[in-house]
């Protein structure tokens, strides 16, 4: 293979390395909510920023506000399509007279359980006891009590990040790729998305579904959606939550 070909192959590899990835896990007996149900979105966290020339992400307040509004609207519509009513919890004080402390406790509990899911499902620290068991975690009685007190059927925990390369960063990215032609290949990361969503069944307390989404590209100017726009936000909601799959046992049953 001549030098030219190596370079071409490399550019192709770089181009391919930009991608959209999602990995979802579900409780074995999970069926996506359908019909008449109430969903509460627990203080959704959205962060949008700009990538500096040096590769730092600087949060941007205006972009974050735009993205947040579009994401929540897209989520509401997407859930309505399944028949669900969505309530967005903006502050801990917002749930039907429930003490903020109780909401905070549930959030902290999820933060602990969620980190455990990420560690043992996504980071490779697999547990033999959880093999082939989908999502096998629960928030327990506290979540059931929360559901009973609020009349909600599901709680959704949502975190979404997006970032955009500044002009300087785009130039660095372009130089990194252009360098391949003179034997200095140093492709640099630019903007990208990262998000997770997790569904808790408040009737059983179990975490029934978890999804992680990542988009990134090493090519300057290449993006996979922009959550500051209505379309981009709808696209992320579709990738993250819209393609929610049932658990393995349910799917096997459906096949038979």
């Amino acid at each position: 293979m001549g030098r030219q070909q190596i370079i071409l192959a490399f550019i192709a590899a770089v181009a391919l390395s930009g991608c959209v990835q999602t990995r979802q896990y579900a409780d074995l007996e999970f069926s996506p909510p359908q019909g008449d149900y109430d969903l509460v979105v627990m203080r959704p966290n959205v962060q949008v920023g700009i990538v500096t020339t040096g590769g730092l992400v600087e949060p941007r307040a205006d972009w974050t506000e735009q993205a947040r509004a579009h994401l929540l609207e897209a989520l509401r519509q997407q859930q309505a399509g399944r028949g669900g009513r969505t309530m967005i919890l903006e502050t801990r004080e917002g749930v039907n007279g429930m003490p903020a402390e109780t909401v905070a406790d549930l959030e902290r509990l999820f933060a602990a359980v969620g980190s455990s899911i990420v560690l043992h499902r996504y980071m490779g620290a697999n547990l033999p006891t959880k093999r082939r068991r989908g999502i096998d975690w629960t928030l327990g009685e506290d979540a059931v009590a929360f559901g009973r007190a609020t009349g909600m059927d599901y709680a959704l925990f949502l975190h979404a990040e997006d970032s955009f390369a500044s002009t300087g960063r785009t130039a660095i990215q372009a130089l990194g790729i252009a360098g391949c032609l003179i034997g200095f290949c140093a492709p640099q990361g630019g903007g990208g998305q990262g998000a997770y969503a997790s569904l808790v069944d408040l009737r059983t307390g179990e975490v029934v579904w978890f999804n992680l989404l990542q988009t990134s590209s090493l090519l300057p100017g290449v993006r996979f959606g922009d959550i500051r726009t209505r379309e981009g936000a709808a696209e992320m909601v579709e990738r993250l939550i819209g393609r929610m799959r049932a658990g393995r046992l349910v799917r096997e049953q459906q096949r038979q």
Partner: protein
Amino acid sequence: MTHEPTRRAILAGLGCACCAGIVPAAARVRPADMQPLVGPGYRPSEEDELGMWQQYERFEQEVAGSNLLIRDPALVAYLAGLVERVGGPAAGDLRIYLARVPEFNAFMAPTGFMVVFSGLLTRMRDEAQLAGVLAHEAGHFLRRHHARRWRDLKRRTDFFTILAMGAGLGGGVAGTYLGDWVRLAGMGTMLTLAAYSRELEAEADAMGVRLIAESGYDPAAMPAVWRQLIGELDASAAMRRRRRRDQSLLATHPAPESRMRDLGLSAEEVRATGRHYDRGRERYLAAIAAHRPLLLDDQVKLNDPGASLYIVHNLAEDGWNGLLRYYEGEAWRLRGRPGDGDHAARSYAMAVAYPDAPAEAWRAHGYGLLRAGRREEGRAALGRYLAAAPDAPDAAMVRYSLQQ
């Protein structure tokens, strides 16, 4: 021809980077140069700061709802009053949260909320010392340190990235490898970032000492806090039979010794002749009185007997009492090496001689006496414990041992 740096060149380069990094941090910041950069009701207007504020506003929600907070309204109001007194032009904008974390630390957010660890209240001897720490934190806000540090970080990482890319491309064209030089520049960047952070800490110290002097607190309280911390770190290391770790070039804060020295000089600079300065010891002790047992209890359970004993002895410079003697005993007992039991027993015996001895001191003293074979005295002491704390969780157990 190679362009690989020799080891000597690398060392020389590092030397330069170190000098460049350390010299500005080592120079004392003069309190007279520390003008507040924000006025009352400050709100950000620039993009980067707006983004930062938005993130910290959410963070404040987390802090405000944290289950680590000590929420006693009287104590929190006392702290808020102190912050208001030493907060300079931002006095009306600062919020304070007290977290139950037994460490010497506090934290200032760019939006104006401050988190103070309970370990500070454990160590401070008077209101002036605590005011000094709060004023240091307020100094970070008044001098806009978050924004300035972020901008410094952006500038330096931008510069380094352009440099690295240029070196790579230039090297590619010339057919040489400059990677080692780029790594060296990377190290230099890290060192200068740390140096800038130390410079800002020195600014906050200078601003703080000025603020407390202006609000009538003895400015010498600030160097005293650092003298205490140095004593504590040394005592902790000595009991572990280790040496205290030296300051690293990558440290974000100046070494305690240099902070103490600079604050000492600054305190003299800001002291106005003829003015009366307050230490506020009685006010401080009254404000934390109800919490002191918990503060000391958290400290002795850290398994750091050197530090715990130092803290107790340092507080006792203002006079011993039953509580301090009891926790001196606890520090010995929890270390649990041969002979420590005797140390503890002596402390408990002294503790119960004070009218303010906590009930637990009578229990500890009583069991100590029983162990020493002084049955009747031991039983009497346990009786004092039960009388003082009839509903204690272990009262039934103590009653049982009295029946034996």
